[in-house]
């Protein structure tokens, strides 16, 4: 996709892999690895323009049961649509037998709805992610996680309102 910039980030000591679509947020610095150069980069789902297609390409389906184990927090009203803080936490033993393997973060109507993909190993210890994403307008943010056993679970979609300010109080 045109203007799409990508990065791979290796968390020190965590061995979690993050693949994120970062469109023009100015977060990129020269010298960072671009995902296009990275083996295994899932280019197709990151380039899809519709939520259903992005989900199908990444997860293989669009209907995922909601689980209270997947906790997504995001502001109800964005302070700055260009950098909306999102926190994801998933209940999991995170041991060799049972761990969260992959987490996907979607913004329903962003130009490319798949915002990030995170790969975990049992060594991560804790399936926890904090990230900032860009949102052009009021929209739903949602998370899907796949465990090492192949179980899929989703967060409830979370509406983040992007509005003009003023007039409070």
């Amino acid at each position, binding site marked *: 996709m045109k203007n799409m910039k990508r990065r791979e980030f290796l968390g020190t000591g965590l061995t979690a892999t993050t693949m994120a679509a970062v469109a023009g947020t100015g977060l990129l610095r020269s010298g960072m690895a671009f995902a296009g150069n990275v083996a295994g980069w899932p280019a197709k789902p990151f380039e899809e323009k519709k939520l259903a297609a992005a989900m199908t390409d990444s997860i293989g389906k669009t209907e995922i049961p909601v689980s209270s184990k997947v906790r997504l*927090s995001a502001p*109800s009203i964005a*302070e*700055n649509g260009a950098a909306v803080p999102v926190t994801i936490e998933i209940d999991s033993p995170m041991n060799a037998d049972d761990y969260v393997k992959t987490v996907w973060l979607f913004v329903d109507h962003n130009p490319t709805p798949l915002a990030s993909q995170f790969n975990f190993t049992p060594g991560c210890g804790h399936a926890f992610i904090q990230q900032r994403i860009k949102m052009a307008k009021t929209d739903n943010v949602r998370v899907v996680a796949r465990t090492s056993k192949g179980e899929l679970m989703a967060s409830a979609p979370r509406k983040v309102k992007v*509005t*003009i*300010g*003023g*007039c*409070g109080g």
Partner: protein
Amino acid sequence: MRIGRRDFLQLLGIAGAASFFTPGAVQAAWGGESDPYEIPDYGNVTLLHMTDSHAQLLPVWWREPDTNIGVGPVLNQTPHLCGKWMLDYYGVTRGTADGYAYSCLDYDTLAHHYGKIGGYAHIASLVKRYRQQLGKRVLLLDGGDTWQGSATSLWTQASDMVGAQNLLGVDDFVGHWEFTYGQDRVQHLVKNELKATFLAQNIFNTTWQEAVFKSYRIHEVSGRRIAVIGQAFPFTPIANPAYLIPDWEFGIHTQHMQKVVRECREKEHADLVVVLSHNGADVDKKMAALVKGIDIILGGHTHDIMGPKPFMVNQTLIINTSTNGKVLARFDLDVGKGRLKGWRFHYLPVFSNLIHPDAEMAAYIEKVRAPYRERLEKPLATTGSLLYRRDNFNGTFDQLLCNALREEMDCEAAFSPGFRWGYCKLPGETITMEDVMGQTAITYPQVTINEYTGAEIKNIMEQVADNIFNPDPYYQQGGDMIRVGNIQYAFNPDEKIQHRITNMRIGGKMVSATRKYKVAGWASMHKSEGKPVWEIFARWLENKKHVEVEKMDLPTLNGDMRSNRGIADPHPYGL
């Protein structure tokens, strides 16, 4: 009970309500000699709560809104009750002192009878009295919006209010408008001048997501451990300019609140968990439904009468304690080991005429005002109308402000923010510079002229409307609808964003989506150049010499609103 009439007049400098001081008036008003502030002893912990004083050191006139519509889950629920609906719900009789305090009905008549409300010297007198009676079992908690709203608070950059809080002995404090002095000033005052502890579980450093302030404080009272958790106004960088607090992030942070409550219970062994909140009434209710383990939420921000009975959500007691010093709330609690065993609640309107002002605080107020006295007292115009701001859609004071902006800036329309602070003036009174500052004293006061298309004007109004009438409280910011000068529209609060406003006109003519209109406004979210709004407003008033509000720019409302109990009188809305 003695009325400190002489002291009171001396303090005010003027007799605001001469007819009130006729012999026997006070006793008659209260139905005898009984002292409304004398409270029978109960329990082992007392919480005193005041909030949203908006820097009014002296007593003021404060009329309750005639329109405060609740939608969705809070339809016709307190505090979205106005006029008779509010009185009926709380079982208060019209025309009594409490009726005067809790509703807009007969406001100017009753004002002459019952007098001004609030005043720090009067509040101090009550606080001192309860501390003398109850000793160390009293905590005084201030819910924020204390540093902003007056000329002297702006001119001293909140020093006058910090001094008053220190004298009053505030224990814990949370914030909202405080942040509009900028993060450096807030940190300076909190660290070096303010004796109270500034609490916020929901403010984080943008870089590291670390808490900027302490989330809670544990007080040992009567051998019990009382946790007070602070909740700042969650939408400060959206409702007020974010550039003033560039390194801080806000938000409601329900999950973090739950974590902090658990920490207080489990790690700190708190016997009682209190949230000192600047969420606003509806957000407090939703938060109480989602977070377990909060005993009491002491709420502010929305300036509501949500007493004399606390509102209950599951096991949590929730109140909202008005504004401008109008009410002091008192919880007497029987706190057992690990649980609240019983409570009594007293919602105490601060009738300044019934309370002997505290001499120490009165002297302090006089001292901080002295250097500015001449500027403050400068007369600008007389008013023939009751001037007020607080209401969902417009107030008479805002109508004057919009008229002034349009005429002074030569614009066909005007916007003014839907702030809920700004006290009243009675018909026949003189509007002084202090009164103008009482409607406008903010740190981003520049007046701007914008060329907006009709579509842009509608979008601005729709966005603001959704911040007030979104049925999900977590998407509400508090505040009221943007005030408009010379814009007419039909409005349906129950609709969704972009569909609430129809039939929009400017100067009576249908608005064109593409035509550009010249619109005057103030309080921009972005840094802007322009004269401060008080200068424009004061000049206009001085030229007018006498003002009356004959017509208000109010929307027409849809028919369903006829039975909405958040409307005291549906007629002005075409119903």
